[in-house]
């Protein structure tokens, strides 16, 4: 028989894990790393469940924890894929095989500093407002705007000339 708090946590974790996993994957572009991020975030939530359960929007709270785990995790090398290999892993080619532009953009996204990547994902995938993004990242709205601008500029520069000229492949 589980403690009622544990029961509540279990229900929350099972319900939100798929969505958190997807967010972690969009941030990291690596399923193994995404799993580690989600487990890290959920573990933190469990250890502080007495506080977390009081959050007004527990889903948003969990998302914030996940993003902060992601931002703090960037130096844990074991979680990283090998980045200096000559030959990418097989599964790097399982998506969008038709377009070098897409792979280039994915690579450029992965090369952004983690905070810029998080800004783009929160604003344009999670559909958070500038203010919500700032709250999640614990920074100012102005910083979110400038980071967004810089990140978009970096992606723009990564586009092959023919793609950036049209800008409308998608």
């Amino acid at each position: 028989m589980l403690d009622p708090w544990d029961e509540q946590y279990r229900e929350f974790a099972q319900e939100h894990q798929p969505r958190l996993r997807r967010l972690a994957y969009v941030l990291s572009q690596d399923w193994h790393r995404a799993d580690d991020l989600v487990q890290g975030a959920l573990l933190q939530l469990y250890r502080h469940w007495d506080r977390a359960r009081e959050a007004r929007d527990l889903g948003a709270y969990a998302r914030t924890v996940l993003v902060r785990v992601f931002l703090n995790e960037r130096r844990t090398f074991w979680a990283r894929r090998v980045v200096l290999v000559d030959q990418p892993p097989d599964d790097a080619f399982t998506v969008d095989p038709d377009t070098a532009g897409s792979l280039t953009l994915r690579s450029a996204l992965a090369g952004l500093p983690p905070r810029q990547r998080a800004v783009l994902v929160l604003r344009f995938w999670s559909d958070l407002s500038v203010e919500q993004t700032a709250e999640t990242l614990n920074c100012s709205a102005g910083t979110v705007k400038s980071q967004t601008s810089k990140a978009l500029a970096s992606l723009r520069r990564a586009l092959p000339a023919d793609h950036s000229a049209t800008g409308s492949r998608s």
Partner: protein
Amino acid sequence: MDESRTRALLAAISADPEPPTSFDVDRLMAEGRRPRRRAGWALAAAAAVAAVMVVVVALVRPAGETPEPVVSVPAVPSPVTVAPTGFDPLRTRIVPRWLPDGFVRGRHAVGTAGETYVAWSEKTGSEVSVTISARDATPPQLGGGNGKPVPGPDINGTSSTWEPGEDGGLLHWNWAPGAPAVVRVLLIEKALEVATRVASTLELAVEHPVALPFTVSTPTGLTVVSSQLETGTLSFNGEGGPAHAVSVRRFTDGPSDPDFTVGRAFAPDTAVNGNPTSVDADGLRVLVIQESGGEYLGTNCQVRKGHSIDEVREECLRVAASVQLVGTLADPSTWTTSPVRGAK
């Protein structure tokens, strides 16, 4: 690149096929109930940090506005006249002779195309990374700049370009003729000054053998593609065999080590070389963890397309069984510089 296209890119990434997950909320909760342990490696790292800080205190005046050297260094590093066209993943070149005050930890990763060294400040979150690439190689595409490079200072007689960023930037130059290098600094003031000093004091002329705390037989059809010194990790990749990539690591903090698999309690279900061993498989990888004398050995094997999980499990267990521990994990001076057995 605009918002709509960024949304499309993120949506496309989000739509990638999702592999099965090994998420187990009960195991995670069990892990959460355990008292948090002080990691052996963390203690070792703390001791190393303390030792370095003693050196810093002994060698350096208290730092003011200008960062001071971590170690005593010659004024000009040895020049490199010819860079290799490919790197040996078992040899490292980057020796930072100066890092900003407070930067007392760093990690090397060496691959066939180049080498990266990353150091950071725990206090400020600032980061400095150095990447050197092989001759005629395309340099890595790194974020952190504004895309508007300007001429930079000479780096020991070689011209450079500086790409400033909001709170850092990228300094590009050639560490040898035709061989690109970049120093990236993030979240740091006087970014160009710091990047220039880091770049101009790098020692890159001498190759140092990578030492690791184990030896391992070469996995079927693979070759060494990278090593990570400070985490004691060795990775293989290649065209043959049921696994397309294999990594081996020896560590002390158990599977709760966030570098390994966060939140999963160690649950041995078999034995390898007489050691309690857990084997996890999730369709894309097989993860074998052995426990021996309070230490752990992880072998991570990624499934090659067209091969069954059973094939990879067998191969992963074979590789795990071939690992022989060398020296004391906490003392790198006891590790071996010949970690790969059966290398071609």
